């Protein structure tokens, strides 16, 4: 198999997160366009300088990426729509980096945005995919809670993990969210007792294992290091990135994602290993999936993630492995496809030293993991990127 080439010379700048709300009267278009406006303002460039756009949204219909160029009055020479749910951000980064490296675009806006209104989550779950519509949703109509309850129970049976282990992830993230003002649940402290005593949703999942659907937008600009320097923008670089789709299809229950298929080579290309990672952002649609990412990305042995989190401080300032440093979806809320950009945007904030109260001290390297698209019984997309602080 060939190996992905270097991402040298690529800069990630101007992390933007905006508009988080439990419900919103605005459309997904509003979220995407608003992120675009803030990206342009943060970079101090003209709208006409944006010549590439990578975007992800579950809620664009009847529009598509093409239609937004007219809505936003932008003329582009590179345009991608990336429907990869929680893996969208890392995959957008990979596609956009190649476009800039090869001269297909100079400045690419990478944006995830979605809205939320009463009933919209039910409508998305009830008509999510042809497999889900015929063979998952009819069985109790639990939405994503159903397949993830299956994965969580199977993981517990296989490894001996307890609810407290998952609770450690949720409680640590809530602490982080209390230092990130935009987190929708950041004002509510969460203790282990609160976690364990929460009402059951889909055994063994309880309330604080499940994300709260919400509206929000996330984005960043991708350009050459040269241009970032010329604009005077602090930036992060990409040491390595990879993705897999439908890995290990023979596993009867998803107890591993696609990460073990590329993790070793990812670190080889990055030139660093797990001990060098200063912060980890996993896709936390459910805590068990954080464990699969920690295991798959080499922070611990397969099936031992629950022991790893028992012995590791996951808060942003605890001196262990800062994990989901802005609170993750579990404490911020899950804004549809924006959730697939959340960890990436937060990592750029951290690596450029503009995170605010939840800043990780001396953050030099970040691992960002993506996971998405529950077609039926498992997430089909796995992606990860190793980022580094730019030299300014």
């Amino acid at each position, binding site marked *: 198999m060939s190996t992905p080439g270097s991402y040298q010379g690529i800069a990630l700048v101007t992390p933007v997160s905006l508009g988080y709300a439990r419900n919103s009267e605005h459309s997904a278009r509003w979220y995407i366009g608003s992120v675009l406006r803030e990206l342009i303002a943060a970079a101090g460039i003209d709208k006409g300088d944006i010549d590439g756009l990578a975007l992800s949204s579950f809620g664009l219909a009847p529009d598509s990426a093409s239609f937004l160029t007219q809505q936003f009055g932008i003329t582009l020479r590179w345009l991608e729509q990336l429907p990869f749910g929680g893996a969208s951000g890392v995959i957008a980064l990979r596609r956009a980096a190649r476009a800039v490296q090869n001269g297909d675009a100079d400045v690419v806006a990478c944006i995830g945005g979605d809205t939320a209104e009463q009933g919209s*989550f039910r409508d998305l779950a*009830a008509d999510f995919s042809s497999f889900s519509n015929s063979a998952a949703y009819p069985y109790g109509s639990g939405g994503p809670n159903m397949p993830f309850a*299956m994965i969580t129970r199977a993981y517990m049976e296989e490894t001996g993990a307890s609810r407290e282990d998952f609770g450690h992830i949720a409680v640590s993230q809530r602490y982080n969210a209390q230092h990130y003002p935009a987190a929708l649940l950041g004002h509510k402290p969460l203790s282990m007792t609160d976690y364990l005593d929460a*009402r059951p949703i889909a*055994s063994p999942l309880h309330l604080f294992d499940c994300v709260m659907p919400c509206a929000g937008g996330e984005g960043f600009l991708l350009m050459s290091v040269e241009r970032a320097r010329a604009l005077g923008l602090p930036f992060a670089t990409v040491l390595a990135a990879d993705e897999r789709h439908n890995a290990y299809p023979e596993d009867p*229950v998803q107890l591993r994602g696609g990460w073990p298929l590329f993790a070793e080579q990812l670190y080889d290309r990055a030139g660093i290993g797990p001990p060098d990672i200063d912060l980890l952002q996993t896709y936390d649609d459910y805590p068990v999936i954080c464990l699969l990412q920690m295991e798959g990305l080499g922070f611990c042995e397969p099936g031992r993630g629950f022991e790893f989190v028992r012995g590791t401080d996951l808060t942003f300032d605890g001196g262990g492995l800062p994990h989901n440093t802005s609170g993750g979806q579990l404490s911020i809320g899950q804004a549809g496809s924006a959730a697939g950009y959340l960890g990436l945007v937060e990592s750029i904030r951290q690596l450029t030293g503009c995170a605010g109260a939840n800043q990780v001290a001396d953050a030099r390297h970040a691992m960002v993991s993506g996971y998405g698209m529950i077609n039926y019984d498992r997430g089909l997309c796995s992606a990860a990127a190793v980022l580094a602080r730019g030299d300014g």
Partner: protein
Amino acid sequence: MSDVLFDTGLPATGALQLQVCEQCGEVNYPRRELCGHCLADALSWRPVDDGGTVQSMTELQHSLEDQYAEKLPWRVASVLLDCGPVAFAHLQPGVAVNGRVSLRILEDAHGSPMLVALGDRANAAQWLKDIDFREDSP
């Protein structure tokens, strides 16, 4: 209350039938148009081995549809069928993870054909009555 007629695509009720590829023999589920193994346009619904092992299970305490919300908690299993595929199925009480089940296709109260996982055929009738599924003749 609104009731949903789910489009499960399952054929006649009774013994388990799934899409079998006439070219390579692969048993396919969830339903699709081309064989997931050899991509042939040669799928036919055929009786298959209805035995399987429960890989995992959940008891739903929350549902997005009224017809389930009224009957919570609702039990669902993930079953690895002996003939190959993994299927979600409504689960009879009393079966644990790694327990053996047999699958049948039965109609719910609104006429949707569904997969039902039975661990104890002798006592299935009362449970099916409880959850408002139409029992067929064994």
